[in-house]
């Protein structure tokens, strides 16, 4: 039961974090006047359309102006611009929390829906596809290589891969992506696509579509794996090396346990919880990596959407919604890993 209590506490504190971030975002938008500016520019744009419409029916210029003023007031009330931001924004927070995320201004789904909920529902699986596949691959490779190196510290392979780890920690994922495009798209004559999720036009048929998707996913996933494997491998190696030197390993050997079992049960099993901690610490970097990788490879996921929302004509509702969704996703991923940690390490269960 203690474990449930612990999980509940963690869940509550992660929910608190999501709330705090949301409030922070909304307060920053409001206090800097950014929210007002964006809303009034939205209203001005709509007013232009309204003016044209009204000009056709109302001939008298004075009457037209009055009607326009009336219209503007209505729009301001509709968008809440008649109230100060600290009145308007709490409603926004509540709205976002109930997952009513509002409408995007320019972005739309393939079906043409501008509801942010629909947009995110369309994009989230794409991001998840990239992110999760990469996570699983680099987790397996990183842990496998790290623990392998720990068995032969100081060997040539160990030294080479330690340097690789340092370099891969320093590799920005976006630059890595650019390099890979340069190599696999430009120099190797379009061996792999430079970006996008499907060829244009996308092939017909389920299997063909899936293969096309996989073909486009190779480079982005490779990028994420290349960048994340090194640090994880290094963490796994150091932890395993530390565990391997602990007394209980000698004790296990003294008991006549065969070397393979010593490795699995008495070294790797013990090293697993701190390795998961390393994975948790690396999660922030992975999320950042997935955003920039999507941008570099024009992968139409959440990261690219966020970039669109911030660059060019900024879209406030989209920014708030995406910051919220990203924080929530991160909290969720963290929570899952923390459950894993609790399962692996009996010491924190009580």
């Amino acid at each position: 039961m203690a474990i449930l209590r612990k999980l509940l506490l963690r869940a509550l504190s992660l929910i608190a974090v999501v709330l705090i971030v949301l409030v922070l975002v909304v307060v920053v938008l409001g206090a800097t006047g950014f929210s007002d500016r964006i809303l009034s520019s939205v209203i001005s744009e709509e007013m232009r359309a309204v003016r044209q419409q009204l000009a056709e029916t109302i001939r008298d210029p004075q009457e037209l102006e009055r009607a326009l003023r009336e219209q503007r007031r209505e729009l301001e009330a509709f968008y809440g611009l008649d109230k100060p931001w600290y009145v308007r924004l709490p409603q926004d927070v509540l709205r976002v929390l109930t997952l009513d995320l509002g409408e995007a201004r320019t972005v739309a789904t393939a079906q043409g829906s501008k509801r942010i909920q629909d947009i995110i529902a369309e994009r989230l699986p794409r991001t998840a596809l990239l992110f999760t596949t990469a996570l699983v691959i680099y987790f397996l490779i990183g842990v496998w290589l790290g623990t392998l190196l720990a068995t032969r510290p100081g060997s040539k392979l160990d030294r080479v891969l330690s340097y690789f780890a340092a370099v891969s920690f320093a590799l920005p994922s976006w630059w890595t992506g650019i390099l890979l495009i340069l190599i696999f798209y430009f120099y190797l004559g379009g061996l792999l696509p430079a970006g996008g999720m499907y060829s244009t036009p996308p092939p017909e048929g389920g299997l063909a579509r899936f293969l096309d998707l996989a073909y486009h996913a190779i480079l982005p996933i490779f990028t994420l794996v290349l960048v994340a494997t090194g640090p994880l491998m290094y963490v796994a190696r150091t932890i395993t090396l530390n565990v391997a030197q602990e007394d209980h390993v000698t004790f296990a050997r003294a008991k006549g346990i065969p070397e393979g079992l010593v490795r699995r049960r008495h070294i790797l099993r013990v090293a697993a919880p701190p390795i998961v901690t390393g994975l948790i610490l690396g999660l922030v970097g992975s999320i950042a990596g997935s955003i920039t990788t999507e941008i570099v490879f024009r992968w139409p996921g959440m990261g690219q959407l966020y970039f669109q929302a911030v660059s060019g004509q900024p879209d406030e509702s989209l920014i708030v919604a995406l910051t919220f969704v990203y924080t929530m996703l991160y909290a969720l991923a963290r929570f899952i890993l923390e459950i894993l940690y609790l399962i692996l390490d009996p010491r924190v269960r009580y």
Partner: protein
Amino acid sequence: MESVLKVILSSGVGRAGLALFALLTGISVYVLVSYPLDYGSRVWYNPAVWADNPAVKPPIWAKPGAVPHSVFLQEEPTEVRKASTGERRLYRFEIPHPYEKPPDSLSLTLTEAVYYSRPPLLTVSLTRPDGRSVRLYRYSPPAPRPGEEAPYVRHRDSPHRVDLGADPQVRAQVSAFLRDEYGLRLSANELRGRLMEILFGEPTSPEERGGPAAFRPLPGTYALEVEVTVFDRRDRIGALQAVRGGETFGWMGTDSLGRDLAQGLLFGFPVSLIIGILTSVLATLLGASLGIMSGYLGGRVDLLIQRSADVINNIPGLPLLIFLVFIFGSNLFLVIIPVIVFFSWPGLAIIVRSMVLQLREGQLVEAERSLGATRWRIMFRHILPQVGPYLLAQLIFFAPSAILSEATLSFLGLGDTSLPTWGQILEGAFRTGAVYRGYWWWVVPPGLLIVITAVAFMLIALSLEPIANPRLRRS
């Protein structure tokens, strides 16, 4: 401090890192001394500076035997002839062109013309190795405005530049040249984009070409002659500059605006080091003082600091970083660095707190306390020195992630546009599609420099692992 240096020097990794770091620092100091501090706004982002440079050309070492980029400058005429009303001054540019291909471009720039009565007249012609001469271009600076007093100064701040490879006047002249010399009839429009090929070549014979007019390169020495007719002896021409655009440029090539990438890359060194060092120093100071306070003062302060640390630790960095820089603007020192610092301190504060908690129970501190030392004194005299080496290791550990964070923001177009940085050079490259066209010299070096700088710090940090290890022993 000394012991930390000893630890770094005791491993090969540490020595490599330190050597690399020294190299980066050396370059940065050189740049800071030799570049103006407002280099970004005055030079890098000023298109006029780069007007004569060829766009997106690779470095000279990448294409041996290519037509180089050459600049010819003359401030005094080669020859002066008296005329009835004034003088004819001749400026002659010898352009050796032993290449089997035309140059990329040919341009002429007039800086400052001062006259007293009528504007001088410039006549530009090209004499080719085969002895043929082509009249290319005529120009007079703008006439006096009503009410303006002599001397009339023109083109002092905005030089007059003419691209001899694209100017319509030149096209018309060349069309006439082809008709008169070779009997070839090509309209000015048909010459669009082919002027260099024609001026630096000769038509192939009819049986050779078979189809439409073609030209073969004509290697040799060309002379670009500018005859300036002045109507008053006192009239003055500041300088004339002829530029033959090369297929290559400088040590690092150019970008799509013709900017010399070598300069931008060099300026990136001090910027990136300052970002790394300043951010990590601030983050370490903040993290350490909050950690020490939290551990030593305990109570509500502790709770507040640890809760905040926990919250910030649970925030996915980049989305919020993008958001904050987007809202508050991308000033490097006022926004970007503080925001990165804001997201960096919690981990350190948590670890330092636990170290302080252990130390606080130590005998030395207890003895001090019984002697009546104040809390602050104990904190800074006894606890800080003990966690010091660890903090130094952390400081070095922070730097690469700060450099990478800034580069990422720059790449997303959120960089500080008053300073050129490697991230921004890459952003420009990516935005203009340099990657898909294989402009490697624009894409590879800035990223490589980011990686090398980050690696220098990483290597030093790796060599400090014996000091920083508590971080890895979390369980």
